[in-house]
């Protein structure tokens, strides 16, 4: 909790760049940059959400029928895994804020393990869908649907969860990067902007899933 007595040793390589007046200004600029990046991410996923709402409106019966092929339990487990990983990510940022290197590294490791857990569950879900012939476009070979456009639902499903999964994979790489830097002793109360930035990104990945889960698995 308390900063160590020899503050000069904290984040030894950190300095305020010459184009910033203060460390606060430098930190705020970095954080605003991340927020602006997150806006582009929101609008990027927004196109897919827009497609989801349009096709759901056009092919409502198909969406309702097709969404019963998704495993609610697996989706709910993955939701819990991601929410827990958001908690550990937030705690990792907090640990960096209070100069607790061991806890920062520990929480980041737990976050990465959760991310892998999410991908493992996703792998089993995809495997099942592919086995059932539910891939998009010409690869949709499943039979026995009573509504005319079940393939559209699975095309939207694969595109949205696939791009979200890609963000999880990228997130693993980013968390690994700050984990190694934290191990090296780069971060402290003086300087933890990369931890905060990766944390914000990881929370956004969680946010997107918070919408994906009910829309795809629960409502259809």
């Amino acid at each position, binding site marked *: 909790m308390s900063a160590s007595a020899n503050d000069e040793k904290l984040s030894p390589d950190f300095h305020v760049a010459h184009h910033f007046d203060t460390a606060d200004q430098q930190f705020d600029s970095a954080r605003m940059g991340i927020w602006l990046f997150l806006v582009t991410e929101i*609008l990027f996923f927004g196109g897919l959400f827009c497609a989801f709402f349009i096709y759901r409106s056009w092919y409502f019966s198909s969406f309702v029928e097709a969404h019963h092929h998704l495993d609610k339990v697996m989706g709910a487990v993955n939701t819990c895994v991601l929410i827990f990983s958001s908690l550990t990510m937030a705690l990792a940022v907090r640990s960096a804020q209070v100069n607790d290197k061991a806890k920062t590294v520990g929480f980041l490791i737990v976050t990465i393990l959760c991310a892998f857990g999410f991908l493992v569950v996703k792998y089993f879900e995809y495997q099942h869908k592919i086995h059932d012939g539910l891939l998009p476009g010409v690869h949709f070979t499943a039979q026995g649907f009573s509504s005319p456009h079940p393939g559209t639902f699975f095309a939207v499903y694969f595109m949205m969860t696939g791009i979200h999964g890609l963000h999880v994979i990228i997130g693993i790489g980013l968390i690994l990067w700050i984990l190694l830097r934290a191990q090296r002793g780069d971060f402290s*109360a*003086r300087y933890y902007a990369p931890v905060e930035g990766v944390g914000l990104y990881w*929370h956004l990945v969680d946010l997107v899933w*918070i919408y994906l889960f009910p*829309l795809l698995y*629960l409502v259809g």
Partner: protein
Amino acid sequence: MSSHDHGHAIGGDHVPHVLPYAAYFATWGALMFFTIITVGASYVNFGPANLLIAVVIATLKATIVAAIFMHLWFDHRMHSMILGSAGLFLAIFIAFTMFDTESRGHLESITGERPADMSNPFLGGSARQKAMNALYPVGSNSVKLSAPGIVPGVFDVPAAPSASAAPEASATVSPEASASASASASVAASGSTSASVSGSVSAAPSASAPPKH
């Protein structure tokens, strides 16, 4: 560590705003609670409200994550505005796209019933438009000059057909013509020959009977 005794001195170090552990665990508990609620709600059919309930709960969870985990509650308001503007423009994007996709096919039934003749686009509308076409033949310069401003109401929505429309339309146009023929009345007042007006008005259209071209 007290959360609010920041020492943001000029030239000093950044002083982080550290939340207590309880804040993070309470946030996590709230997120799990709403996850259970939204899963539970999915087993109950609320009809068309299903989607709304799911989106409202998800937005509640997203707000909690943004406020605590992403520190927006304790952050510069500018960062909240950045996120809020993203939400606003996302809403505009989705809503305005769906204004289109949700109304496709509505116009086709109308144009199928009363197709527009693009060589003479004012033909086939109201009695007044018919009269206008008789007065100002296609290609006539006066159509362009007199179009919307000089003769009022050229672009009016066609009058609804009524049972009384037919006898009035076949009758000679006079200033006393009643509401459904008021179009031709104003045309007559604008200095037209009544012969051409009555000729066109006698072919008064109705929404149920498409004009022949």
